[in-house]
């Protein structure tokens, strides 16, 4: 029994996984960044499919609009255009693929052996009002303290970035 929602899910899943594989296997670094962009958009689509619209919006704004743009700028600053990445040694590739595949097989074996509780889908997904009230709540189930800690962390990261990337001018004397 295939309906539109199921077909959409499989399309999103195939798109996400294919662009992730291309992103780690292509030898042109700019294409790797663009495939990473497609992967992140596919994951945002899966969040939409799960009807977590707020997380999907955050994913698009922060990852697609922030991190990927930052990565593309740093590629422009550090790479020569049209230059391919050097090819890796074959044994290193084979061992990395073997390690990744063994880890994947072990994980999926554990996941399929584990019986999760029955899934309950009758509850609607949280809307933005509930999310906002919980994020600022200080009582049971409130996340005000981690929110404040994250704001301190972002401030520290911002100042740290400025200090690290600052070009030290040679002194006049």
């Amino acid at each position, binding site marked *: 029994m295939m309906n539109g929602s*199921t077909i959409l899910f499989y399309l999103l899943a195939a798109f996400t996984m294919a662009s992730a594989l291309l992103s780690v296997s292509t030898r042109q670094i700019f294409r790797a960044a663009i495939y990473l962009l497609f992967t992140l958009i596919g*994951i945002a689509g899966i969040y939409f499919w*799960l009807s977590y619209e707020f997380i999907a919006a955050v994913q698009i704004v922060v990852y697609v609009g922030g991190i990927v743009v930052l990565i593309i700028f740093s590629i422009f600053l550090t790479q020569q255009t049209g230059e391919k*990445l050097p090819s890796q040694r074959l044994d290193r590739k084979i061992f990395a693929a073997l390690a990744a595949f063994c880890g*994947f097989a072990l994980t999926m074996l554990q996941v399929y052996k584990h019986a*999760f509780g029955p899934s309950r889908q009758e509850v609607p997904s*949280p809307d933005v009002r509930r999310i906002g009230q919980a994020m600022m709540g200080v009582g049971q*189930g409130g996340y005000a303290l981690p929110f404040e800690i994250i704001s301190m962390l972002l401030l520290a990261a911002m100042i740290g970035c400025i200090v*690290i990337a600052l070009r030290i001018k040679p002194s006049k004397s």
Partner: protein
Amino acid sequence: MTQPGLYHILLISAVLFFTGVYGFLTRRNLITMLMSIELILNSVNLNFIAFNKYLWPEAMDGLFFVLFIIAIAAAEAAVAIAIIINLYRSHHSIDVEQAEDLKY
């Protein structure tokens, strides 16, 4: 081809995670290694959302973990790129094989 559920999303998440691991082990360029780390973080986010949706739909803990992970990932990417650009200035290369001054 069955109705998608928790296991399907866990499968996607595992594929993304180990794709990221493969990329992290094979790449030798710092920016592509950072991209692999982003893939790994995204697979973890997908897992949190799937568990929140299918097992505890009335709670919002997974959702908040994802929000905070996204914020920390943004801070981490910014600091990492600042370090990479600084490394490029001093070594004119962002290959990890070239950045071995602390090794000897």
